């Protein structure tokens, strides 16, 4: 039983190697078998250790836990692992016979399965250096997957992603060095115990700042988000779903883990990261409103939703606000992957990414349009869908501070406007030539859409089971949330008709605003200075 975490890392990696070596159509089905085996193993593991995280510490080769490589699972990492395996199932089913490149034997499954093993390792690892190794491996594999379309902009987005993330993760490594030099160990649990009762050293604050920069780059927070729209916009749709749904959450997971590790030191990080999250949400929505490319819109919405999650996660883990953010991580993984997968099918059929050129989807692909509408209702926070629950918890959490409430309100209106703009693709006349896709894509989309609705309706048992919090005070039934939602939609519709549809000059200016690579790095340095100013000087 204790070996299951190791199996979960190595089953996908070895499957990937076998697929790579044999390169046959039938060997590809091994990926599905492996995925099934991992699901069974994870459920067994959850049944055995779900409520006793202290027993899950696993040290390789019977070393002392302070120097050896160790794996550790608690509720948080277990729920992330369920999400990982679920997302991979969906992406596997979706991309199994459906790639946007025309090559046979393209090694796609090799990289996909390898990335799953690496990501599961990242979630479970208990020492900081292993976290660093898994982060770097994720960066490398994701770069390859982004560049997989073999077009010029895919290569450019790939190298942009790789360089920014690698330099961010190197900051993480400097943080590890400072911690090792102070404590003589890099084990997360050991450092947490050693921090207990220590005075407030500047070196430890420096280490915290450097670790946070790694997490912020990975999570695409405000000044560092520039790689995300490029990368997620040009990758294949299945990969975009994976990146937006899950891999970005790796940064947020890191954020929670580091804050958990430094919890004995009691740093007051809440306000800073709330502001950063709020700015991220606002900026993301602002850029999303101005875009014309369907996948760019979705990618910028990932930025803004990460901001909303950050607004929740920045509070202390004892607050309900924190669990609002955490629940939003899971909800966003579902609805954003649903939207990206649907966008992939539509783009494939119409052979264009421009929202203004796609019309009449309701007539040509009724099932896909219904599923897309479920995704849109979820992301805009309609009652009975999962986005509503988490946004309501966040709203309750910040109810007493007005400025925080207004940030969330404007982001919601922006989101509504942007998806009203996108929903124009459903109307209009039926085009002449379209290329219809096959059934498996719809299967995975239908499963995700169902889980969106289930998470939106049966949220009370789910949240008690996974996070151990009681959410029974959130009620999607009743008229008040409905009025709230309709009011948001009305304002959004008016805003769309008056400003966005006319494509006024400020909107065009925002669309043409580009951040070059040098400026992105300059912004990273500024972010470092801001963190140092907030945590050390103030």
């Amino acid at each position, binding site marked *: 039983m204790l070996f299951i975490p190791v199996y979960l890392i190595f089953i996908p990696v070895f499957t990937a190697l076998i697929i790579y070596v044999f390169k046959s159509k039938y060997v590809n089905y091994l990926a599905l078998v492996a995925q099934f085996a991992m699901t069974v193993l994870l459920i067994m593991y959850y049944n055995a250790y779900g409520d006793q995280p202290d027993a899950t510490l696993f040290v390789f080769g019977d070393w002392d836990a302070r120097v050896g490589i160790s794996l550790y699972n608690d509720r948080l990492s277990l729920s992330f692992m369920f999400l990982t395996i679920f997302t991979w199932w969906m992406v596997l089913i979706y991309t199994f016979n459906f790639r946007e490149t025309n090559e046979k034997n393209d090694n796609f499954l090799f990289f996909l399965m390898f990335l799953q093993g690496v990501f599961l390792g990242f979630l479970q690892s208990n020492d900081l*250096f292993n976290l660093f*190794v898994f982060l770097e491996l994720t960066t490398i594999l994701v770069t390859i997957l982004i560049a997989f379309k073999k077009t010029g902009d895919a*290569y*450019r987005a790939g190298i942009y992603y790789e360089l920014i993330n690698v330099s961010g993760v*190197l900051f993480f490594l400097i943080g590890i060095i400072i911690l*090792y*030099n102070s404590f003589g160990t890099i084990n997360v649990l050991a450092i947490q115990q050693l921090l207990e009762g220590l005075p407030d050293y500047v070196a430890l604050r420096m280490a915290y700042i450097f670790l946070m920069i790694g997490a912020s780059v990975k999570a695409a927070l405000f000044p560092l988000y520039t790689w995300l729209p490029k990368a997620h916009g040009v990758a294949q749709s299945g990969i975009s779903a994976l990146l937006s749904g899950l891999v970005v959450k790796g940064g947020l997971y890191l954020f929670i883990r580091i804050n958990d590790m430094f919890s004995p030191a009691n740093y007051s990080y809440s306000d800073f990261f709330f502001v950063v999250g709020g700015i991220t949400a606002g900026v993301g929505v602002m850029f999303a409103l101005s875009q014309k490319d369907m996948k760019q819109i979705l990618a910028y919405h990932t930025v803004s939703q990460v901001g909303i999650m950050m607004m929740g996660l920045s509070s202390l883990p004892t607050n309900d606000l924190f669990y609002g953010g955490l629940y939003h991580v899971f909800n966003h993984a579902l609805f954003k992957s649903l939207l990206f997968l649907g966008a992939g099918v539509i783009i494939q059929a119409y052979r264009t990414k421009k929202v203004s050129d796609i019309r009449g989807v309701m007539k040509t692909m009724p099932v896909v349009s219904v599923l897309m509408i479920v995704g849109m209702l979820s992301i805009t926070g309609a009652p009975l869908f999962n986005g509503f629950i988490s946004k309501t918890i966040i709203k309750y959490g910040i109810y007493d501070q007005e400025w925080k409430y207004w940030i969330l309100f404007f982001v919601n209106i922006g989101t509504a406007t942007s998806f009203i703009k996108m929903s124009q693709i459903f109307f209009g006349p039926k085009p002449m030539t379209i290329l219809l896709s096959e059934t498996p894509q719809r299967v995975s989309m239908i499963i995700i859409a169902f889980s969106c609705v289930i998470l939106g309706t049966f949220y009370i048992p789910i949240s008690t089971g996974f996070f151990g919090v009681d959410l029974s005070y959130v009620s999607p039934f009743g008229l008040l949330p409905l009025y709230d939602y309709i009011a948001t939609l009305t304002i959004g519709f008016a805003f769309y008709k008056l400003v966005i549809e006319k494509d006024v000059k400020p909107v065009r200016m925002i669309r043409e605003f580009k951040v070059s690579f*040098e400026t992105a790095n300059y912004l990273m*340095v500024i972010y470092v200075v801001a963190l140092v100013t907030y945590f050390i000087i103030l």
Partner: protein
Amino acid sequence: MDPILTFVVILIGFYGLSTSTNIIKSVFCVTIIESGVILLFLNLGNLDGGSIPIVGEGITMIADPLPQALMITTIVIGSTVTALALMLCIKVFHHYGTVEWAEILRREEGK
């Protein structure tokens, strides 16, 4: 070598990243930062007069083996990252005919 000097190396790398307009130069700047970080860690694990961490006769003072084990992993990862980045550079050059960030952006808009 003083730890301060390694920080200077890291800062030179960041200066290069935020000023150079060429993809290949950016790749090398990331490599420079990486070298700086590796030097920093090796410095901190080092011991004046200590020998390499292999047990033998007459050896009393050894350097801390853990930083060396960790840094060799970092070097391996770093070389992979550099190789992948340079490969992408070649591909970008084939598609755009240039490796200048700004020039690529201009050509993309022109298309």
